[in-house]
């Protein structure tokens, strides 16, 4: 039997990109619905006050990370498909961008 090359960095990058995309597309309707409550400021205020809860903050941190990971993974894919650079160069750029965004977002969210 031919086993697919699953234990490969490229496969893990694909899996992260796909799962983060799926999570984001499932999260977006909820995100939009909550923002839509701004038509009634009192209701919107209740939702925003809810974001002070540590568990919600943790969820937000996860979503920011997923968004950053999906974007950087997507930029990596676009570079692989459309730019005539070596794969190693492109991987390094995407990894550094992802790390920078991840650290920056985690710090800015002030979770600690």
């Amino acid at each position, binding site marked *: 039997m031919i086993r697919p090359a699953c234990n490969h960095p490229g496969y893990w990058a694909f899996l992260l990109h796909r799962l983060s995309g799926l999570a984001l597309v499932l999260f977006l309707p909820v995100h*939009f619905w909550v923002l839509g409550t701004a038509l009634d400021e009192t209701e*919107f205020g209740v939702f925003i006050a809810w974001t002070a809860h540590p568990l919600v903050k943790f969820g937000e941190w996860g979503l920011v990370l997923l968004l950053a990971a999906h974007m950087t993974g997507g930029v990596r894919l676009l570079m692989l498909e459309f730019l005539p650079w070596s794969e190693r160069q492109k991987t390094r750029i995407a990894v550094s961008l992802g790390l920078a965004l991840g650290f920056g977002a985690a710090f800015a969210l002030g979770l600690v």
Partner: protein
Amino acid sequence: MSARLFLLQRLTALILAPLVLVHLGVIIYAVRNGLSAGEILERTRGSLGWAAFYGGFVLTVSAHGAIGLRSILIEWGGQGRRSATAIGWAAGSLLLVLGLRAVWAVTGGGA
């Protein structure tokens, strides 16, 4: 994935990348002292710039999310192309309607 959808997914990704960067910047800025409904709405209400930015964002992400979901349904969900396309259209439409309503709520509603 058809060649047209493949290209549209790349095109929307290309548009989304800088929009996501700006959005991440806005998130990081907005949470620096904790989120507040008043502060968010003060920034967005009556702003044509933010309405255009997030309106474009919603339009692009609706197409991108729908095409991505369609691919996952076909490759992982065991769906046929026709039903995956139908679900993709439904998901994209839902995202577009809810998204534009959200943009209206934070930029125009109550102004």
